[in-house]
């Protein structure tokens, strides 16, 4: 627990200290470097916690330190770090840089606390700490109209989802008299069907589903991803989205272990999640097919991927309700967590590459990608690898998580989800290949080399290395995901 505390302190220090430094010294770059150092330090502390921490509950049971929390904290903070590094190159300069990094650190802090939350109040505070800075970050290009639009839409709908979550929490508290998740589980265990709790569960799904970009709570995603500064869009797609998943695991799936949604098996939590999964992946893939803008394409693809992740959730819920298919549930949760990790890497790589294209070529439509392999070979290669991985082409990272997810449901009553997912996966390769074809085969408007800045190349190399590395040697990551998954089972 002391490691987590150290991580919290280093992020908080950066978030609060960097703007102060700016007032004293007016050296924006220094603040940026300090924030990057602080985020790196936080990652190291979390890594140390993974290695030596063990499962501890602390701070009056507000936080719990377990492998699940470590996994998510590592993912979200690593993405935050990558975003912080590449933001050094983005257009903002001058006095706004420290506030940018401060907001980034605040959001990172929120996601860190969220990963370890063991209490609904803590969870809500962390949720807002994560969200509020991102509303500002979305509108950070304040002279650009789309950025303002993105921020406005995101903030209004975000407030709506927060309200829904809060309402769900109040219902839960009203029934159980506690906000501590373990306490709630004790109260609910063996309780008969209670409509208030069931409504609360559904409200939680809607509220968290907003961040997870589950259809039909996804509407903000394409506009916000497209309008926000591209680095911030990366943060949304690869980090805050994952925070939605950890919140859902901590609350919804935890409740599912002791309580079933209705006495009627047709409307079980498993079926609700399964339907949402299929609708989400299908809608995302179909909509992605016709996009003309790269960020919108990535946004829809990101929606689709959320659908795959839900597969593991639904088989988990099914297994908890029926007591059957425990092995499948374990496989499914492992697959979901692995896909969360993979998705953060794959989508992070794709988004950052798209960001570089926007920065250097000043346009984000798919036409800009024609002949990109000649102009920006490293960027094009990064996009190609991450797209193939997103499509689940073996032996890249995305293959393993999808394989686990497909296996987990194929012999259960939820097999139809596997069929839909396999068909979706095949279908999605269409638009991924299309972009790759543009980059490598179609002639571009020029073949002149465009500069690919050093730190971008470093980040790309790390991400591509991870995609291929996890693909070829998946053992370590799978065992981390599987031990994180086992901490979901109570």
């Amino acid at each position, binding site marked *: 627990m002391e490691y987590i505390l150290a991580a919290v302190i280093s992020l908080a220090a950066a978030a609060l200290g960097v703007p102060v430094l700016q007032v004293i010294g007016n050296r924006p770059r220094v603040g940026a470097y300090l924030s990057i150092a602080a985020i790196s330090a936080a990652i190291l502390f979390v890594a140390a916690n993974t290695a030596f921490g063990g499962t501890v509950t602390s701070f009056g049971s507000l936080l719990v330190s377990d492998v699940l929390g470590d996994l998510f904290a590592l993912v979200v903070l690593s993405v935050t770090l990558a975003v912080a590094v590449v933001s050094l190159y983005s257009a903002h300069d001058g006095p706004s840089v420290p506030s940018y990094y401060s907001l980034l650190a605040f959001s990172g802090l929120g996601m860190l606390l969220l990963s370890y939350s063991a209490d609904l109040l803590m969870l809500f505070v962390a949720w807002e700490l994560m969200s509020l800075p991102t509303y500002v970050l979305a509108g950070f290009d304040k002279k650009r109209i789309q950025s303002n639009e993105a921020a406005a839409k995101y903030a209004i709908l975000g407030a709506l989802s927060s309200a829904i979550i809060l309402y769900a929490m109040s219902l839960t508290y009203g029934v159980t008299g506690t906000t501590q998740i373990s306490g709630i589980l004790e109260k609910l265990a063996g309780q008969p*069907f209670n409509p208030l709790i069931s409504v609360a569960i559904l409200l939680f799904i809607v509220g968290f589903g907003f961040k997870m970009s589950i259809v039909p709570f996804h509407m903000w995603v394409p506009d916000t991803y497209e309008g926000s500064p591209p680095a911030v869009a990366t943060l949304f797609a690869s980090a805050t989205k994952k925070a939605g998943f950890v919140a859902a695991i901590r609350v919804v799936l935890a409740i599912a272990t002791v309580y079933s949604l209705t006495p009627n098996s047709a409307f079980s939590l498993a079926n609700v999640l399964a339907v949402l999964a299929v609708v989400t992946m299908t809608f995302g893939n179909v909509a992605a097919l016709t996009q003309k803008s790269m960020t919108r394409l990535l946004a829809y693809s990101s929606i689709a991927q959320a659908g795959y992740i839900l597969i593991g959730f639904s088989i988990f819920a099914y297994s908890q309700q029926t007591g059957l298919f425990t092995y499948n549930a374990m*496989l499914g949760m492992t697959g979901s967590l692995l896909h969360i990790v993979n998705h953060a890497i794959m989508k992070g790589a794709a988004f950052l590459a798209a960001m570089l294209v926007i920065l250097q070529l000043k346009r984000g439509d798919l036409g800009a990608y024609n002949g990109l392999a000649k102009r920006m070979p490293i960027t094009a290669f990064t996009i190609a690898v991450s797209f193939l991985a997103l499509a689940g082409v073996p032996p890249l990272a995305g293959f393993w998580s999808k394989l686990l997810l497909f296996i987990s449901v194929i012999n259960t009553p939820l097999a139809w989800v596997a069929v839909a997912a396999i068909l979706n996966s095949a279908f999605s390769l269409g638009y991924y290949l299309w972009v790759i074809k543009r980059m490598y085969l179609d002639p571009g408007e020029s073949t002149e080399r465009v500069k690919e800045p050093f730190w971008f190349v470093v980040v790309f190399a790390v991400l591509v290395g991870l995609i291929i590395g996890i693909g070829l040697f998946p053992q370590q990551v799978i065992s981390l995901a599987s031990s994180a998954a086992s901490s979901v089972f109570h």
Partner: protein
Amino acid sequence: MDPVNIPSYFVWLVFVLPYVGALAAPLTGRGRIRDVVAVAFPFLSAMFALVLLVPVIEGHTIALVNSIIPASVPWIPELGINFGVLSDPYTVIIANLVAWISFLVMLYSVDYMKGDNGLTRYWFFMSFFIGSMQLIVLSDNLLSLFIGWEGVGLCSYALIGYYYHDERENWVGTPGSKALGEEQAYAPSHAGMKAFFMTRIGDLAMLAGILILFITSGTFNYHQLATSTGWATTLAAGGLLVPVALLIFGGAVGKSAQFPLQEWLPDAMAGPAPVSALIHAATMVNAGVVLVARIGPIFYFAMQSNPALIQPFFMVVAWIGGITAFLAATQAMVGFELKKLLAYSTISQIGYMMLALGLAGLSTNFAEGLSAGLYQLMSHAIFKAALFLMAGVLIHLTGTKYINEMGGLKDKLKITFAVFLIAAASLSGLPPLSGFWAKDAVLATAWNSGQFGLFLLGSATAGITAFYAFRMFGLIFYGAREQHPEALAGTHEVKEPSPIGWIPYTVLGAGTVLVGLLGFANLEGSLQASSIAYIYSLFTGSAFSSLTSAASFDIVPAGITLVFVLVGLLLAVQLYVRRKVSPSSLVKESGFAHGVYRFLENRWYINAVYYKAFVNAPLRASYWTLDHFEIGVLQRVHGGGASLAVRLSGAGNWFDRNVVDAVSADFAAAGKALSKAFRRVQTGVLEQYALVLAIGLILLLFFFLLVTGLYTSI
């Protein structure tokens, strides 16, 4: 015989080296070194394969000694999945075929592809393909087989569409020709996409089958599947045994272009000739055969006590093989596009392999069918690769892809003429060439297992095969030369290609003769022994009755088939070599003959029907929704939104004039931008978004109330 010890890394290197070559070739610039590197790695890989082949020829089995990298390494311990390689004689023979044909094709490519702009891309995908193909062959489990399977699919897609500029000369089919109103000519990139999606239909079925098999058995490994057969009992109890086997077989149907997924292969000929030779004749299309050879014995012997439960599966495999062989052979009888004719022939010949593997499960001696399939695979891979390499040269020299525009090349191209004759004779199944023995082995299996319907189908197809093989041969090498477009233009002399061009196919031609002569030395018996050794290696450690090799040569079936072959052959010689009667006038005179001709030329209209049903119908449906739903309904909704927006923007203007302009200019700019942004937000879109979210929530709650019956109490 005693096993021969071989270090395990030798086997790994066979498939790893081509992958290394795929990465190395692009790194060595654009010059001669790159080409040398690209050919060197497949050569090294082939040499390692050869080391494995030597003991197999001597009749030994191979024992892998763990050295550097063990024969099987832990891959995903959580699922108990290992990744390993096989070294049984059956596998080694196929691996050698793949390795050596790959090397020869790569060598041929140096000359054939010389000066092409995308050569780096070509070498990368060809090398990557060879590695993936060897991965399919050498894998000891279905999962890494699937990885290789996807790898070859991607390479095939990229190489069919190699001429992605889609120049007219690279199209496949005759532009303008139509069947049922559907265009029958395709650009290379279209053909690549078509191949990819058609094979993917099969791949999806296969993936589903493999995953069901895994979740029931807990393993992907062939050996474990073979030795612990509880999964088969579970599946059989649920009535899923045959469906799961058929799902996996779906992958083979797609990849090996079997009916009903055969339509991608003829159009895949849009790729360069060496690609057609390697991928679409000699190796990748045989991946399906390898797959069936892997799962066939496992399913068969798992149900040894009750074969009736699994026989429907083998029945389907055999009939699909037989029907495909016949269907594609008839299509090869008409039309003039050389590579397309060869593609029909490939589909047909692979049909024989599937027929053999299906018959294996229907007969009492599994090894007989298995080895007949291997024999056919081996013989076909060699002579068909030779035919495709020659096709590349012929098209290049004459400047036309139509065989009726070639003619009279006999005197100018002596080497090519001789090799083509050998290959065509082997394809026709004339003794003593390899094709004769292989086809005889397949048909004898049908005869011996009492499947006379299949025997007659295969036997008649052999006659058709002889007809189209010699029709091709006659049209290309006999008759007048005046028709060549290149000769007419007088651009250049038709002469033999350089040695690096003709040596590869001459070697393959010699291989055909050699394999044919080995037939007299009971090659079939040796292949049966190899197949038996393979089956034993799968089942080591389990109770297993012994298998014996049976001499399958029988004069009756061989005689019947030879009669068919001779009839087809003589007909073709009369019509196309000696040219006694003009076939075109025959077709013109009879309305019936003309109808049959059109039917065959248009591939039995299967292709056109597929396009109508699966390509154009969905497109039309999508346009229909666009017209009737999006434009009709949504526009009205948007109209309402727009009028609201106008009013709102009026309000915004008032706000701009009276409030925003009052504050400082700098602030105003930002404010205006913000107001504009909000105006965009307030065109109703944001409300719509919130509305959708709310509808989602309300739907969830509504269904909740509905199913719990709570609504009655509210």
